[in-house]
Each structure stands twice: as C-alpha cells, then as structure tokens.
C-alpha cells in the first residue's frame, strides 16, 4: 500500500518539555518523522511546547505551534489547521496519551481526523493495565501474576495471596512514576497509596516481584499489511527490578542462546501483530535465568527511548520508517537508506557490541535518594560501541562524564568488605563500581551473582578487567599486553595511572563502520566507531568520498544532564547544517544516542565516541580538519579546548584563551576593571576557615560555588556561618583541590543577553529578563523576552557592556552574559563565550538564526555583510516566556526549593501578544493548574514575611482562602488579612501535611532559610506537594506572576495561537 491518498496534512504531536523518562529521544524521533512526512509532500503541522527542540524549528514543519500540550490547545490547533491525520506514536507518552484522549472524546471523528500509527484500541491494549492483561491472556503470552486495582485494599489482598515482595505500577504515568517494590504490608500501604494518587485514572497494577530475572527488550516493527520484523534486541546488565532507563543495557542481547532468543523474538512479533500496531513497538520481557519461563513486562506501542537507542545501535532509522508506515507504506516499499539498494524490510545484524550507560543527577542532588528501582531517575545516557563488551563498557563509563576513566573507584577501594557488600545491595547508581571492586577483592562470581542476580557472563567479563588491572599494577607492560588492554577499552591515561608508567607508546585506533548488516552488503553509512583492528574503514571511506571540501569537526555535548540539555544538541546540529551550507565537509563526534546530532544523516560523518582527548585524537588524525568547533557542545566540548589548543589543533571561533579569560576569576576581574564594569564583590578560597573569613568580610548573604561549573553545580546562597561550613564540607569532599568562589549575593533584577560577535561588531538578538530575582539559577528562572521593566538607560548600558565584553574577549561567535541590576547599578554576574541554554528559544522568537550566524562568523564572515545588522535587534511584537519544568516527582528526597543550584530538566515556552497571556500559556504548558477558588497555603522564612503580605492580599482578593503556618499567620493577620492557622508537622496531627492531603489547598507558597535535607519540615511539605501534584512556588516573584496571571482570567478559549512559521518581525 502506498501513501494513503486521504492524507494531505498531518499533525505531529511532540513530547513537550524534557523530564526524566522523556528526553531528547523524542526530538530525534519527531525530527525524523517531520522530515519523512515532508519528503512525501505532506503539509506538516507540529505541536510541541518545548522550544529547545530541533523539531520546533520553522524549517521542520509548515506550521509550528509552541503551545501548551493540553487537550484544549490541541483542539484549537486542530480546528484551525484542519489536519487529515494525527501522528500519535512519535511524541512519547505525552503524545500518545493526548492522542488517545482526543480520539476517546470523539473529537477526532467529529473533526474528520484519522489517528495514525496506533488506534485508540491499540493504545488501550498497551496502556490500560487490565486491557493489557486481558489481551496477553487472550493471545497466550505469559505475564506476571498481577491484579489491577483502584483500591489499597485490593492491593493488600493480592499481595497476601502471591506473597511479598510485590511491585506497584501506576497506570498512565511516565517512567514508572509513583511505583515501587514493596517488601512488606507497611511498604505496600505507602507505595500503593502514592501510586493510586499519581495515576490520572486512580489505578495501579500490583504484581508478583520477579526481581532477578533477566530483562530483555525487543524493538519490533509492523506495517499495515501485517509484516513484522525485529530491529534490535537489548539486554539489561541489571536484572528485573531496576527500571530499564536506569540500567546499563547492551545490544544485542548477549547471554541468550538461540532457543531463548527466538522464543522471545517470536513472542514480540506475536504481540505487535495481536495489537495491530502500525509502526514501531517496544516489548520488554523478563526471562527466568534458570528456565525457558518468561513474562511480558511491558509493551510500548510507540517510539521510545529504547527505540532511539536501538536506532543508534543498529543504524536502522526506526522513527523515520514508523512515520512512513503510519501514512500507509509497507516496509518493502520504503528504501533502506543505509545500503541505498535494499528495502526497509530486513532485520539488522550487528558485528559489534553496544553499551548504554545512564547519566544520573546525583552529583548535583546530594540529598536525593540514589537507590534505583522501578522509577527512572536518570536524566540522560551515553552509548558506546566496541568490538568487545569490555571495550564498549569502558568507553561508556568514561563518556558518561562521572569522573571515571575506568571501573576502579577510590571510595570503594577504601571500604570494608561489609560496607562494600552493603553498597552492592543498596542498588544505587554506583553499583557497577562496587561490583567491580568486590570482584577485584576476590569475591567469587557465584557470590556476586547471588547478591545482585547480574548474569555470570557479565561478571566474568568484569573479572577479565580485574585481572588486567592487577597485571597492570605489577607494571608489566609489554607491547602485546598494551594491545590487549587497548582492545579492552583502556586509555593510555588509564594504563599509565594504573601501572605507574610515565607514558606509553600510542597505538592508533582504527575505525569500523556501523552498517546494519555485518558487512554483508556494501553500505555507505558514514557512521563509525573506534576499535583496535587491522582495517580502518573510516580512512578508506574518507579517501573514496573525498571531495575538495575542507573538513570541520563539531564536538557534541554528551549525555543530557541538569544544566546541559537538549539545547546544546540543537546548537550542535544547527552548527553542522550551517557548516555544510558554507561548503564544508562536517564531522560530528558525540556519544548521546537520544539526539539528532547522532543521526548518521546529520553530519557528513558521525563518530560515536566519548568526548575525551584520547578518544578524539585519532579522529583528528584521520580527518585532518581545518578547524574544530567546541562552542556549541556545552561544557563537554569546552573541556576539550585546552587539549586542542595545546596540540595546535585549530579551534574555530572564540580562542581558547578567551574561554579561559572568562572562566579564570583573576583574569576576568582584571578585564572588568579595565572596562569599568562592576561585578558583585567576591574572592577565592580553598578551605572552610578562609571561606568563613571571606563571608564575614563580604557580609551575608553570600554565594558559594566551585570554579569551573555548569548548571550551578554545588552552588548555594549562605546566610550564616553554619551554612558556609556545611557547604564547604560538601563541596570539598566532592571536588578536592578545587577553588571555591565566594561572592556577595546581590538582590535584584536578573537579565540575560545572548549576543553574536565577529570580533568587531556585536549583534544582540534580544535581552531577556528573569521573573525570579537573582539567586535562583538562570536555568530555573522564568525568563521573559523582551525584558519588560528596564529603563532605556539600563538597556543602553546592557548593550554597551555586552558589546565591550564580547569584543574585548575576542569573541567570534556566541556569547552569553548574565547581569543583575541592583539599585539602578548594572553588575555582571557571569560571562560564557559560547552557546547557551537560551539560544534555541531566542532564535525562534526573534527569527534570527543565531547558530547559523555564529557559525558564519566563526568562519570569518562579518556581521555587517549579513542582513541582521549590529547592535540590539528590534524586539518582536510578541512576548515569549520560558518556564522551567522539573522532574521532582521522580527524585524522592530532593528539596524543590529553587536556589542557585539548577534543578530543572526542561522548559516550555509561552508565546503571545502580551506578557500576561504568554505567562499564562507558559505556566499552563509547564503543568500548572489554573483555578480561582480554593486555598493557598503560605509558609515563608522570616526575611520574606514583609513582602509576602502584598502577595497574600492578591490571592485573597482573587477569592482564595489563606492558610499559613504560625509565623506567617501572625505577619498576615497583623496586616489585617484573614488567615487559617496551620500547625507545622511536629506541632500537631492536624498540620501542613494533613491540610495538603485534605484537598483544600490549590497552591503553596513556601520558602525557607534552610532547605535541602529531606528531614526538614519545610522540605517535607514541598515534597508532599510534588506527590499530590499541587503547584508549589518557592520564589515570591513566581507567586506574584501567578497571581497576576490568574487575575487576567485567561482560559484556552480566549487564548491566542501563534504559528512560529508565520511570526512577524
């Protein structure tokens, strides 16, 4: 069947903001889908609230709506655009759920819109726990004994029959939110209640716990003709019990005999067929390691994180093919892009091993619970490819940017055997290092298998590595052994560190191609990974394909983490495209499987490698670039700068020295002094004692942070000596030897400027103003473009300072500058001569292709030659507001109070003709509920008690009933407001927690002088609000903004829609 002739216009729904469990993989999928649809001549309408994505670029679709992903807004879009079909399976859980609701309500039918990819029945078969169970039983596919229930009682009864432990999985939640393993009745009461609360349909599945079984996944595809194929099998290093998103995963499955493999493959195909899915599907199995018994754990009838991984692991473009299938094509009608000769209907075969390693946020969130379970906690992941498991694993570990170049860990080595065993049983993010250490100490494979249920095959591989480490420690370094070490993934640096050798002779990498077919066909995929083998395919590929074009290498941004998200992939990809347009042959190096940058179609050549000097050195050797680009890959790429410049490898754009000048405190201070620009007073300290002296000299509050940071890592505002002491201890234990910066903390209006400089002139696309005052990390602030409350004079000063700073730092390309205005004085807080988090958003709303211009500038073009002029670009007739989105419900124990340490995982955009409407849309898109009645619970620290009065009055005037804790109540009552007193947790049974649970509270305003520790009452209240889904404002400015928005009375009917493709400038 070719293209469905009824289709002329298709709506693609994206996945919204990046949250844990739903990251850049859907931008990759959505971008592929949009392209695949446009290729067919279809008119594409895109809806996604996330402005940092590539898919929301005006060029990706014919109509782009960066609007809240709510039913109301989607209906508005559908009514306006009148698409013929909706692609439901490429926007993650968000896109799927929304599509299903639209269909269920009968809205799609009424509008004459067809649901493509999966119909409502299919979605329900996979998503609704009971229907899923019934479907599996009907087709005789085994599932785990379970019960679907809406009550706690039902859960308890079932657990009594099948015996503990049991697993709780709430229906329709993302990444297993609200689920967990209960070992006892007490635990089940807790987990089941929370699960019921978090499920939008108040339904949970309670199942027998089969922790310890192997966890195997299959990515399968089906077309409308019923053809089914398997794309990839994957096996979790960590057995069932740890969410697959938090597991180390290998592809293909490595410990299955053909009988087991084929049994599960057939089952996966049987399931996709029974569900009549048209497109991609992910099936997760649990396999008893001691028999052929298996159970289907989960089916996702859509593209997913696993499908992105499978696409990158095999080279098979799942999302692209899924999109083509959804619009009517059969698999044998879709060309295989890799061979160019065959069709998409084949099963990839691998001649390498892929390892995926998760990236967790615990380095930033020291108080968050690190234990891994059924709820995903990783923010991102890296993938690596090797000819052996050991090589792939070590590449993944060093690419994850977790301060490990190998599996040894000083902290674990110092542990007693008992603590080590405890650490292994704790199942946290560091378990692999603990397991390695135990094997190194001589624990038997059998014992570790009993402790962890990790398959003996993996453990034996770790023992291989242990033996190599031991041999290294003896210093026996002959050339054969070095070669073996390199083949097993050791770097020269690691070999030297473990053996004590000063240096070793460099063995060059050779590169192998990822071609989906194990070399059976002549593929032309420009997709490579490093190995130590004889033939170098990249070298011959380059030779065969060598045009006359000069080569440029772009370094990507590695795994997604707090502070370094999808924005940097957006920037990297745009840089690649701009370089291609400028006539260069472009090479990209990156190791994040979720991204568009690692699509082998993005650059001319892709190297899937960690971004460390040793891993990129040979790429540079064979590619012989005329330039390299580090400015768009976040801190990951910036970290390569020094090495590149020391090795005289040309860096395009801002010179390495300028990056250093902006980051080195001494040099930066001197520069500001020269330019007569003020910055908050501060100094550098090494020890706790020095920090205390400095803090008292500067006067509290002060800001403490380690030098060289991103995303406010370990950054705090200290109000007292006790705060300083506590944080110095934490910071120094995490990064010994690092300098700590201590600054006077300035209260005031925070502004952010992204500018492009060609060395002579500066173009400022826009000035953004933060709603939250300084002190809240810029990534967590609500940012408004254009700045709304600064004077012309202040604006001129900002332009003047930005221009001076950019030029004197010899910037060639992008620069991001953060300012604070306090008492009409403009201070510079931070300067980063590179791409920033706000670039994609600003590019979209100003219509200035910032990355393209920056890239051109890096190549030597002048701003004056380009059509956008210099100086401050005129503001757009829209207000565009970036609202941060958090993943607090996934990270138990983490205080939600915002501060200088970044906590958000993603963002949404609200764009509208007025600021209040933009804010309404932004907050709505970020998940806030809007209501004008009910209650507001207020509990603020002493320093906020004056200011809260006016804010509380606004809420009271809107018709809210006020509730407050004792101190706050007094302050409000003194001001004449009517308040109900609520006791603190330790004061009474009827307290802040019980009032939250009562359902009387719609919003919480909570600030506290101290936070962080989950044991504090204020943190408990905020955590509870997360669990209950009650918006909790931890900044007074945000509270004001929300009140203002509520006052304006916007609702979906009276809100406007803005098509990004038709923005008027």
């Amino acid at each position, binding site marked *: 069947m070719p293209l469905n002739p009824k289709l002329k216009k298709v709506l693609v729904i994206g996945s919204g903001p990046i949250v844990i469990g739903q990251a850049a993989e859907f931008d990759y999928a959505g971008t592929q889908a949009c392209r695949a649809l446009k290729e067919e001549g279809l008119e594409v309408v895109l809806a996604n609230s996330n402005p940092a994505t590539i898919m929301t670029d005006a060029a990706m679709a014919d109509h782009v709506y960066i609007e809240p992903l709510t039913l109301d807004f989607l209906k508005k879009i559908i009514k306006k655009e009148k698409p013929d079909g909706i692609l439901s399976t490429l926007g993650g859980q968000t896109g799927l759920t929304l599509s299903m609701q639209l269909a269920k309500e009968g809205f799609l039918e009424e509008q004459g819109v067809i649901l493509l990819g999966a119909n409502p029945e299919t979605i329900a078969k996979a998503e609704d726990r009971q229907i899923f169970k019934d479907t599996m039983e009907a087709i005789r596919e085994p599932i785990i004994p379970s019960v679907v229930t809406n009550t706690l009682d039902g859960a308890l009864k079932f657990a009594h029959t099948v015996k503990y432990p049991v697993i709780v999985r709430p229906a329709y939640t993302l990444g297993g939110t609200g689920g967990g393993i209960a070992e006892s009745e007490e635990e089940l009461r807790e987990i089941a209640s929370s699960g019921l609360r978090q499920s939008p349909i108040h339904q949970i599945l309670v199942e027998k716990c089969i922790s310890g079984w192997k966890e195997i996944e299959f990515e399968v595809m089906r077309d409308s003709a019923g053809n089914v194929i398997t794309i990839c099998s994957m096996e979790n290093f960590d057995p069932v019990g740890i969410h697959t998103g938090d597991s180390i995963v290998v592809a293909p499955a490595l410990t299955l005999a*053909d009988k087991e493999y*084929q049994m599960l493959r057939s089952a996966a195909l049987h399931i996709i067929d029974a569900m009549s899915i048209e497109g991609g599907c992910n099936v997760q199995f649990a396999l008893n390691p001691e028999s052929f018994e298996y159970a289907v754990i989960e089916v996702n009838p859509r593209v997913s994180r696993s499908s992105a991984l499978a696409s990158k692991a095999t080279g098979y473009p799942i999302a692209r093919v899924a999109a083509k299938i959804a619009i009517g094509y059969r698999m044998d009608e879709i060309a295989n892009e890799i061979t160019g000769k065959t069709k998409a209907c084949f099963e990839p075969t691998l001649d390498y091993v892929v390892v995926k390693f998760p990236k967790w946020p615990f380095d930033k969130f020291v108080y968050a619970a690190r234990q891994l379970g059924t709820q995903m906690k990783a923010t991102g992941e890296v993938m690596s490819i090797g000819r052996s498991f050991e090589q792939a694993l070590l590449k993944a570990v060093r690419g994850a940017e977790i301060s490990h170049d190998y599996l040894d860990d000083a902290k674990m080595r110092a542990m007693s055997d008992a603590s080590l065993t405890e650490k292994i049983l704790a199942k946290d993010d560091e378990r692999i290092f603990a397991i390695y250490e135990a094997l190194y100490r001589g624990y038997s494979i059998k014992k570790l298998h009993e402790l962890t249920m990790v398959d003996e095959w993996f453990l034996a591989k770790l*023992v291989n590595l242990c033996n190599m480490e031991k041999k290294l420690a003896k210093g026996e370094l002959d050339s054969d052994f070095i070669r073996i070490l390199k083949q097993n993934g050791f770097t020269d640096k690691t070999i030297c560190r473990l053996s004590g050798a000063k240096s070793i002779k460099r063995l060059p990498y050779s590169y192998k191609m990822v071609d989906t077919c194990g070399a059976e066909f002549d593929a032309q995929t420009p997709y490579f990974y490093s190995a130590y083998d004889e033939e170098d395919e990249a070298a011959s590929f380059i030779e065969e394909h060598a045009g006359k074009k000069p080569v440029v290498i772009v370094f990507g941004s590695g795994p997604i983490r707090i502070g370094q998200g999808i924005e940097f992939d957006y920037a990297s990809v745009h840089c690649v495209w701009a370089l291609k347009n400028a006539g260069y042959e472009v090479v990209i190096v990156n190791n994040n499987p979720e991204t568009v940058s690692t699509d082998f179609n993005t650059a001319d050549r892709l190297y899937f490698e960690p971004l460390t000097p040793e891993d990129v050195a040979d790429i540079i050797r064979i590619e012989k670039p005329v330039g390299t680009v580090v400015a768009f890959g976040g801190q990951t790429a910036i970290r390569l700068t020094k090495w590149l410049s020391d090795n005289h490898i040309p860096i395009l754009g801002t010179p390495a020295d300028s990056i250093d000048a902006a980051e080195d405190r001494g040099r930066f201070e001197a520069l500001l002094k020269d330019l007569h620009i003020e910055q908050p007073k501060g100094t550098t300290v090494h020890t706790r004692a020095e920090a205390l002296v400095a803090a008292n000299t500067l006067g509290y509050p002060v800001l403490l942070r380690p030098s060289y940071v991103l995303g406010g890592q370990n950054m705090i505002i200290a109000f007292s000596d006790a705060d300083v002491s506590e944080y110095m201890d934490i910071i120094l234990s995490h990064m010994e030897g690092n300098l700590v910066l201590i600054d006077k903390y300035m209260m005031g209006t925070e502004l952010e400027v992204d500018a492009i400089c060609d060395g002579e002139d500066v173009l400022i696309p826009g000035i953004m103003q933060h709603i939250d005052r300084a002190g809240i990390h810029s990534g967590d602030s609500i940012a408004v473009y254009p700045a709304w409350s600064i004077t012309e004079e202040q604006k001129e000063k900002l332009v003047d300072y930005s221009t001076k700073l950019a030029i004197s730092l010899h910037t060639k390309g992008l620069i991001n500058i953060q300012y604070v205005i306090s008492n009409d004085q403009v201070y510079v807080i931070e300067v980063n001569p590179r791409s920033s988090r706000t670039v994609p958003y600003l590019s979209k709303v100003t219509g200035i292709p910032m990355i393209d211009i920056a890239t051109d500038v890096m190549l030597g073009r002048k701003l004056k030659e380009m059509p956008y002029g210099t100086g401050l670009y005129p503001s757009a007739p829209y207000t565009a507001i970036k609202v941060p989105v958090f993943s607090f419900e996934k990270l138990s124990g983490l205080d939600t109070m915002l501060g200088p340490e970044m906590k958000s995982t993603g963002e949404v955009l609200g764009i509208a003709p007025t600021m209040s409407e933009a804010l309404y849309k932004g907050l709505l898109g970020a998940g806030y509920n809007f209501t004008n009645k009910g209650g507001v619970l207020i509990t603020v620290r002493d320093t906020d008690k004056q200011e809260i009065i006016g804010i509380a009055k606004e809420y009271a005037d809107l018709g809210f009933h006020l509730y407050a804790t004792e101190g706050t109540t007094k302050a409000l009552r003194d001001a004449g407001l009517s308040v109900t007193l609520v006791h603190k947790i330790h004061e009474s049974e009827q307290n802040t927690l019980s009032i939250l649970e009562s359902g009387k509270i719609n919003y919480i305003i909570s600030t506290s002088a101290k936070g962080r520790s989950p044991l504090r009452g204020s943190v408990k209240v905020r955590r509870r609000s997360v669990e209950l889904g009650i918006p909790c404002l931890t900044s007074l400015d945000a509270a004001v903004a929300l009140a203002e928005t509520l006052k304006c009375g916007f609702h979906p009917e009276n809100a406007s829609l803005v098509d990004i493709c038709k923005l008027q400038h």
Partner: protein
Amino acid sequence: MEKAIYLQLADGTCYKGTHFGAPLVDDIIAEVVFTTAMTGYTETLTDPSYYGQMVVQTFPLIGNYGVNTGDFESNGIHMSAYITKEFCNAPSNFRCQMDLDSWLKKEGIPGICHIDTRALTKKIRQEGVMNGRLTMTEPKPEDAKMLSDWSIKNAVRSVTCKESYEIPVGVTEHHVVLWDFGAKQNIARKLHALGCQVTVVPAHTTCEEILSLKPDGIMLSNGPGNPKENLAIVEELKKLCTHKIPIFGICLGHQLLALANGADTEKLKYGHRGANQPVLEHSTKKIYITSQNHGYAVKTDSLPECAKLTFTNLNDDTCEGISYQSFPGFSVQFHPEACGGPHDTEYLFQKFIDLMEGREF
C-alpha cells in the same frame, strides 16, 4: 599458551590470529564463508550444510552461552574449521554443558580467533567466497595460488546418514520419508511434532526404495555443496516426481527438486548465511524473515512452466521458493525449521501436512 595461527586466502591475503579449539596437525583447506547470525553458533557448527567450509562469524562474541547438546542439529560438527573474533571461555546459561573451546577440542575442530573478522567478511563480500588454508606456520605467498584449484567434493555423501532409520511417533497421522542430504535434525523434530512418523533415508536411496516405504509425503533435506554434484539423486527425484506424492524441499532439497524439474542452479557470489534474510511470499505479499545457509541458488529465469516462483529474496531478488503444478510439491531455499534463526516460516510444515491430507495448497 596462546599460539599463532594463520589463515591464508586464495587471493594471497593472510590473517594472523590466535589458535583455539582442537590442535591443527595438518593444514586445513576449505571454502571460507561468513554467517551474520548473532546467536545459534551451536546450530551453525552442527549444521551439515557447512561441510567443507570454514565459517566466519561476523558477530564478534561467540560462545557466550556455552554448548548444549540439545541444540545440536546433527551428531557433530561438519565444518572444517571455525573463525571468530573472540570466543568465550566463561560461558553462562542454565543449559550450558561445556564451553566452546572444549567442545571444538573434543570434536577435533580447530579455530582461529582475534583476527579482523569484519575485514575478512568484507573481502569475501567483495571478491566472492574463496578457498583458504589454515596453518600453524606462516604461509608463503606463492602457496596461495594452489588454493583456487581445490573444491568441495563428495559433500552430500560425507554427511548423509549411513543407513535409514525411523523416528517413531505415538499416533501416526502421516508417514514422511526424510531424504537426508545432510539434514538438520530440526526438520525431523518439526515433522514429528506435527504427528508424522519419519523415516530417514540416506542420500543414495533410490526412488523405488522410497516408494516401497509407502510414504504419505517426502521431505527433501538441506545439505552441503554444489547441487549439480548430485546428478544421480536428481535422476531418482525425476522419477519420484511422476508419482503424485507430496514433496517438500528445503535448501539443497529445493535445489535438487528444481534441477529434477529442468531448472538450473548457479553459485552465488558469497551466498546467504544468516538469520535475517527477508523473503517475499508472492501469493500473500507477506514478508518473512528467514534463516538461510546456502552458496547456490535456483536461477529464476530457468524455471520451467510447471514451476511457479513462490518466494523471492528481498535483498537480491534471487529465487527463494517454488511450487510445482505437475505434482503436489513445493520447496524453499530458506530454512523454515529455523534452529538457529527465526521461526517465522514454521507454518510451511503445516502446509506440507495439508498437502498430504489432500487439502488445497
């Protein structure tokens, strides 16, 4: 202790690797072929169709789950030598009985590992299957020339059963004669599971001898080598086709049946060996992923009028299946019995049963 071992190809290329498996006493000369299957090495090693060949596994980690005799497709290993990137000496699986290295030693099959198997695969893909020599001493370049003269001989005769035997079944619904040209055991297992009583007969059995067994159907097995090496069998098959007994041919059996009906076969450049070959069934337009292991194929343009092309390989459009109008018979080039490989075309065995029961095919 690790020993160096060399693989010399007919074009002069030489790979130095590490020896594993059984000791190599005399040099081994064999045809070098590659398989892209990622699992199922036990089945591959025991597949008699690999007679006279050395097999390169494109997947680099072999031996992960050890060896289990329950996975054997014949009584032992029939290939000449084994080529892998890495082999696993610490396997893990609940059914594992021994590791790969020990098994190869027991079976007397030497192996070479730690060579650039991808480079070797590419070479075969580009230049076609080639003969190779496995030797413990560094070979002289001039020795490569004589390798081209060697060819696989007496392939079927070497792997077929010596005499016929029966696989009894509780309630016999059909009696099938399995003509063994080097049969994988799963063919018999599949028939058996469908209630067939199977009589396995050696390759040199005549048409009359087969007819005397009064079969309800005849199964032509897979097997090694050039189909045209088996002219006597083809002659017997010609006779057999004149009786209206249902016939089902797999792989070599498919090729022999085609030859008997006047079609021609040809050698493919590097064959189809793996578990991911897509084939299109013309009658239903459905695509199946199949397990394959063959170096020769039936030439589609040589099919006589009585033969209808039923399956085509989606990668290279070669003939993958035929049905015959002149007698109730059909055949496929791929392996519906799987092991190793996908079970997607298992339904063909049921079709064979249907045919024996006189149902419309």
